[in-house]
């Protein structure tokens, strides 16, 4: 060491500080220092050494600081005091408390939503006793024509059989196939069931409770069927269903088991299970079937039950060997397999052809990210507002410190207060959560009825833990600021206390928050306008009072004659599909040139279709008659089809023959009418040629009724009566055309709702941040305001001075948000929309206007309050 130090090394005294109790530390350190100075005369090294040894030696029972926990015991008594002060301070500033509480509650409701959702997702498939040993074979299909391989949850029967026959390393191989559908009939009753095919191992692998029947043989015989309790009850009422024979069309099945209704958190859902042997027998005789092929990976599932402690890598090796051998046989595609454990199915990776519901981790991460963003944003505001308000609490802290409170105690107190606020918030947010739950279920889970989001008692624990975390997160910063306050400076001059650094960072954050708000409000306005625009779009035909009844495979004539008798029905027609609802049918159509074919949208309709929907004819008219038997003869086309085949005059098109391919196998159809261009697809697509082909009974899927009725409920009942006479299996389905269109544009309504909701969140969070800033500014500038007032400044003047900074911030936000959202919506979201609203100043200014109103109200309220205070109150102490 080149230069002599006069003081002992810092780290040595730091050790002392580490263990030594507070009341002994100072003089002990002093003593050692004194000795150190003495020893320095000998040598630096010796002094250091002795000092170090002393530090070590002084580590004795009586010098050691008592563990924190003991100290906290006394402050446990203080908790009641903290609670009291917190309650008082919350009650004193009712407005601010409620803003804080509500602000947190809004964001926490999203957090609660996430907790409920994710805890439910994680509970999927946890009820299987051997769950940790169940694996599923997944497939990857790489065709030479595509660059990206696709991943499938399904696999081939081939792989399952191969594993079973030639490989070892598992206890059971379960084969399944999806899409078993049947209309089961027993005497008077018929029910439609959906389910899967499953091999006999089903009940060995999975833990589903069989109420009656033998689990080891239930699925062993062909034509054996296992029903769920509910479907069995529907079919047999109170009778015992086991062993009964039911028919479905030509087939008859034996009921070999009744299974308890499935838990909702199962990734496999069914109403009936058919034995897999049934399928195998059906396909075994056929020469042409691809059922047993290596490449039939689209419909089948293979589940494996591994022995205890078995490494799935072994199975992957088997699968690799199988794939290598089989992939050699073709050069058009490559298929690979691997196993995935049951726990990783739902939620899992993104796969096609899932057997049941699927939730991907990716989606969950996105939701979690959004949630965290909202929560952190709200916590930031709490922090912001609390720091701004903490000047009010400075004196309290000063008194506490004088009386002997330590830094940790002050810290504990304010964190405790934040936790109380968070706990109050969490109860409110549960209310909000109940409000937004259906909304969330509709949009995010999208009709997946397996997710219930029901309350469970364990959630209470999660919510409390969550509230504590939020309390700590939001409260820690203001608490640190308050704990750092020096008693002496608080009493000397409270206004000199520097509360905040990084003011510009906070300004940037607030500008950011407001930009987001404006952007989201503009977004929701645009989405709403586009939605309304789509609904009111002139489609070229009328949908008013049109009620579409789904035929569901029934013969149209019978129903039609019955329905026609109803006085409320003025007109009736039949059609294949319903235009402008997203459904598309197309055929290949040729005119004179056999080499020139065009893909044309089609619909199959009867002659009344044009009058029920009020189409405008440019030439000709509807079909002369309906074809109840045999092939179609006539067609009505729209003007775009004429353009496509270069027919100039609509009138000259009448009587021309076009050829319709594919489904109708080169049918020659005579054009009997030309209609004006109309909307076949949804409106954001370009209009394309349409051919309205004369339908035959097999083509019709819907009846279109024109209904005039004052009592719709009674009318619907009458319709349903007629329906149940004809079809007892399928429930009656009828929708008004306008409703169907509304549904078709649901995605836009959803977009509008999401944007609206996010905008609401963003603006509440942003205005709270702004409020925090406004409060801070007015409180710190209180004296300046008073002096100005004394010197004669008017109220308006003062408000202007105080608000200037904020207004600038708002203007900056608007300046960023308007062009940004304009570009985002015109260049990214609606770029492919053919028919769309023009985004003008009205849409853009809407967001700015709303945000400005809220912002200015917030600022005005604070500045107004500040400008009204009596200067005498403020300056009295000077």
């Amino acid at each position, binding site marked *: 060491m080149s230069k002599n130090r006069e003081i002992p090394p810092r780290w040595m005294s730091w050790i002392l500080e580490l263990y030594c109790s507070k009341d002994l530390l100072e003089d002990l350190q*002093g003593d050692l220092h004194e000795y150190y100075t003495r020893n320095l005369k000998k040598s630096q090294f010796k002094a250091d050494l002795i000092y170090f040894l002393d530090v070590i030696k002084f580590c004795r029972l009586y010098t050691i600081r008592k563990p924190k926990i003991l100290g906290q015991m006394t402050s446990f008594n203080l908790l009641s005091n903290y609670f009291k002060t917190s309650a008082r301070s919350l009650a004193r500033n009712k407005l601010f408390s409620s803003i804080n509480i509500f602000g947190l509650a809004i964001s926490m409701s999203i957090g609660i939503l996430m907790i409920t959702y994710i805890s439910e997702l994680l509970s999927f498939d946890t009820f299987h006793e051997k769950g940790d040993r169940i694996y599923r074979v997944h497939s990857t299909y790489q065709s030479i024509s595509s660059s990206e391989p696709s991943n499938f949850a399904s696999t081939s029967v081939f792989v399952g059989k191969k594993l079973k026959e030639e490989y070892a390393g598992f206890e059971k191989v379960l084969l399944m196939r999806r899409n078993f559908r049947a209309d089961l009939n027993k005497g008077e009753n018929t029910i439609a069931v959906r389910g899967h095919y499953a091999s006999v191992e089903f009940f060995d692998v999975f833990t589903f409770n069989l109420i009656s029947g033998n689990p080891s043989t239930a699925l062993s015989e062909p034509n054996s069927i296992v029903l769920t309790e509910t479907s069995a009850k529907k079919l047999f009422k109170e009778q015992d269903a086991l062993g009964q024979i039911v028919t479905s069309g030509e087939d008859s099945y034996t009921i070999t088991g009744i299974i308890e209704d499935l838990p909702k958190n199962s990734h496999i859902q069914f109403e009936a299970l058919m034995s897999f042997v049934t399928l195998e027998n059906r396909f075994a005789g056929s020469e042409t079937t691809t059922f047993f092929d290596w490449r039939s990976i689209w419909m089948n599932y293979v589940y494996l039950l591994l022995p205890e402690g078995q490494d799935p890598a072994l199975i992957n090796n088997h699968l690799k060997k199988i794939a290598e051998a089989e992939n050699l046989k073709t050069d058009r595609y490559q298929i690979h397999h691997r196993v995935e454990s049951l726990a990783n199915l739902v939620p899992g990776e993104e796969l096609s052809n899932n057997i049941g519901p699927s939730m991907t981790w990716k989606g969950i991460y996105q939701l979690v990210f959004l949630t965290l963003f909202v929560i952190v944003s709200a916590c930031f505001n709490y922090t912001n507002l609390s720091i701004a308000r903490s000047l009010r609490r400075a004196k309290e802290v000063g008194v506490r410190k004088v009386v002997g409170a330590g830094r940790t105690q002050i810290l504990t107190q304010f964190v405790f207060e934040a936790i109380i606020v968070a706990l109050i918030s969490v109860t409110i947010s549960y209310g909000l959560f109940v409000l937004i739950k259906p909304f969330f279920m509709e949009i995010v889970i999208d009709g997946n009825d397996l997710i219930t989001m029901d309350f469970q008692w364990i959630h209470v624990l999660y919510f409390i833990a969550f509230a504590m975390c939020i309390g700590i997160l939001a409260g820690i910063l203001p608490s640190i600021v308050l704990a750092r306050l020096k008693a002496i400076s608080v009493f000397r001059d409270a206004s000199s206390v520097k509360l905040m650094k990084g003011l510009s960072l906070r300004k940037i954050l607030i500008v950011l928050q407001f930009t987001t708000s404006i952007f989201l409000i503009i977004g929701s306005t645009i989405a709403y306008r586009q939605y309304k625009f789509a609904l009111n779009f002139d489609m070229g035909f009328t949908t008013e009072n049109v009620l579409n009844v789904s035929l569901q495979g029934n013969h149209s004539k019978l129903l039609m004659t019955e329905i026609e008798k109803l006085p409320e029905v003025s007109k009736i027609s039949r059609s294949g599909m319903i235009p402008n609802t997203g459904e598309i049918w197309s055929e290949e159509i040729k005119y004179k040139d056999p080499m020139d074919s065009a893909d044309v949208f089609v619909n199959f309709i009867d002659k009344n279709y044009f009058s029920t929907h009020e189409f405008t004819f440019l030439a000709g008219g509807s079909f002369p008659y309906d074809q109840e038997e045999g092939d179609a003869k006539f067609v009505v086309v729209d003007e775009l089809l004429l353009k496509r085949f270069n027919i100039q005059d609509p009138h000259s098109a009448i009587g021309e023959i076009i050829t319709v391919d594919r489904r109708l196998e080169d049918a020659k159809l005579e054009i009997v009418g030309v209609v004006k261009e109309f909307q076949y697809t949804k409106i954001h697509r370009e209009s394309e040629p349409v051919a309205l082909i004369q339908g035959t009974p097999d083509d019709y899927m819907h009846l279109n009724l024109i209904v005039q009725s004052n009592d719709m409920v009674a009318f619907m009942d009458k319709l349903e009566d007629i329906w149940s006479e004809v079809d007892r299996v399928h429930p009656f389905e009828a929708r008004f055309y306008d409703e169907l269109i509304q549904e078709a544009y649901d995605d836009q309504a959803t977009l509008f709702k999401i944007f609206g909701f996010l905008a609401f969140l963003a603006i509440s969070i942003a205005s709270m941040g702004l409020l925090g800033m406004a409060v801070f500014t007015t409180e710190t500038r209180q004296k300046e305001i008073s002096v100005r007032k004394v010197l004669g400044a008017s109220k308006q003047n003062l408000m202007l001075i105080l608000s200037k900074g904020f207004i600038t911030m708002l203007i900056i936000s608007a300046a960023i948000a308007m062009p940004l959202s304009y570009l985002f919506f015109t260049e990214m979201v609606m770029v492919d929309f053919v028919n769309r609203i023009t985004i003008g100043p009205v849409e853009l200014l809407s967001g700015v206007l709303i945000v400005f109103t809220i912002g200015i109200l917030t600022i005005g309220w604070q500045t107004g309050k500040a400008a009204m205070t009596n200067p005498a109150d403020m300056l009295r102490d000077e």
Partner: protein
Amino acid sequence: MKGTNLGEFEEIVLLTIASLMAEAYSVNIVDEIASVTGRKTKLGVVHAVLNRLEKKGLITSELGEPTKERGGRRKRFFQISHAGKVALMKAKEQRDRLWSNIPELVFQGIR
């Protein structure tokens, strides 16, 4: 109670504090013991004894003004309490009584 009697070193420390009057703080005490008795004592030992005496209520302490040689830290000054004085007197009395019981001839030839 065992604590009513003073240990030998405790007694010395107490006596030193009493003799140093207002200047009694740990380093000074160590020095004084060394110079009067010639015993080289360690600070740690003295510190522990001071702590024990204070717990017994025989001495009281208060912090003085910070000084530069101590790195700006304050000294802890000790004062003998009433109980301390009583304890010292008692110890002295006990010894005096014992001394007075010893016949003169025991120490003959030593002086």
